[in-house]
């Protein structure tokens, strides 16, 4: 019974702390609204792994193919990879009315997978 009580208290405290963190983050972002959010520390390890996985040669070999690009901020974009430079990946995204050349900063890319 005590264990359940302790667990409930922990859950409440954890929830409140997480909520407070989000509120603090919103305040921080409100003060700098147009700057993209800094990636979390945990993401940096993932970035390192992703960088190793998607080295320049691998990505270059996908040029001309339809790919899915995942970003560090949980984003995902699908299109034809038209160019892969050291700074950016260029995707050609087909839209109902037109095609759009969409640039993704290389530093934001977490993974590139063929579709």
């Amino acid at each position: 019974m005590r264990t359940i009580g302790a667990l409930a208290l922990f859950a409440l405290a954890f929830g409140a702390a997480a909520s407070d963190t989000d509120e603090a983050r919103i305040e921080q972002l409100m003060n700098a609204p147009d700057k993209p959010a800094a990636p979390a520390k945990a993401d940096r390890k993932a970035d390192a792994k992703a960088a190793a996985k998607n080295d320049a040669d691998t990505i270059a070999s996908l040029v001309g193919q339809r790919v899915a690009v995942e970003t560090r901020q949980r984003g995902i974009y699908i299109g034809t990879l038209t160019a892969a430079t050291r700074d950016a990946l260029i995707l050609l995204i087909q839209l109902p009315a037109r095609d759009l050349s969409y640039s993704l900063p290389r530093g934001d890319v977490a993974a590139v997978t063929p579709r």
Partner: protein
Amino acid sequence: MKLMLIGYLISLLFGLLAVVRVWRASTLDGVLTLLVPFYFIVALIKYWSDPDHNIRLHAVGMLVGSTLSIYGAAHVTKDLAGTPEDRQAFVQSLHQQGVKLTPEQERNLLSDDPDVVMATMAALDDQDGGESTGSAHAPVPRDAEFDNPAPVARERPAEVISYAEAARSAVFNRGRYTREAIGVTIDVPAKFRLINASDARRMDRARGRPEDNRVLGWIIHEKLALTDPDAWHVNLRWLSDGWIAATPLDAAALLDDAQRNRTPNPRVVVSNGDLLGYAAAPQFDGQVLDWAEERLLVNSDDRVVDCHALRLGRRGALEFSIVGMPTGSAALCQTTVRLLAERAVFMQGKEYVEAAPGEGLRAPYTVAALATHAP
């Protein structure tokens, strides 16, 4: 008319003077003379021989005034009928308005006998009433606009107020917001304010947007002014379609489906533009579904982010959406809707369950369809 008025004023003046004179003799008689009709006759007799309080002259004055007034009233018809020139002008104005008069009606209107003139005018009024009054006269043709008047409701302009006026009249709510009918409570964060559905609809109307019958309110940050049309806000909506089935969410497959779907049917509020990708891929933790879409606005090169977080319940979903945010504010947008969705709590028995409940409405779409806008 004038004679009637003058007679009435003379009568009133002498009456008041009589009351004052009697009042000086006896307060009771004064009050009774003022309030009881014809009591002045009692006072007249009572103080007939009292040189200080008799009202003989006043009674004569009232009599003369009343006579003049009655005489004036008897001749008011003549005044209303007006002079021959007035009546000629009246007949002419009727012709100009398209009212067709019979020769007899015209002759009667120009008659010197005021009773005949008034009787003809009354007959014309009855004719104007036409069918509704059941008049025996033949209907007089009138112009088409008069015969087919536009409905009053169409003529009356809709309530149009400016965005600033709508914003100024909005009431800001803090703290807990409860909707008993839905069975949900939202603990609005300290830095945010909520305006209710009627205020939110007024704001939408002021912006010329169609009415959203699913809206429950707007939530805005305290640092933003509601009067600023460019300030962002969170749309709070209730999707009352029933329990929504959860399905596995494969981000790439969902995006593929969403982009291939040429006839999207969004259940959440979205910007008017084409989907470029997910700025935050859809994820569902068993209670809250959230995602962010990057869109290219129609007929423009501007890109915006729409953020959504839905707290699912047993009878529907509570939607928190921000639309049209600059792409650089995607993190702010997503963090805000996610925080608000986590602050919403359904009451016991109304919370989301994984398995379809035995009774109650079931939504004709899944969690995945919400993110792909599948029909």
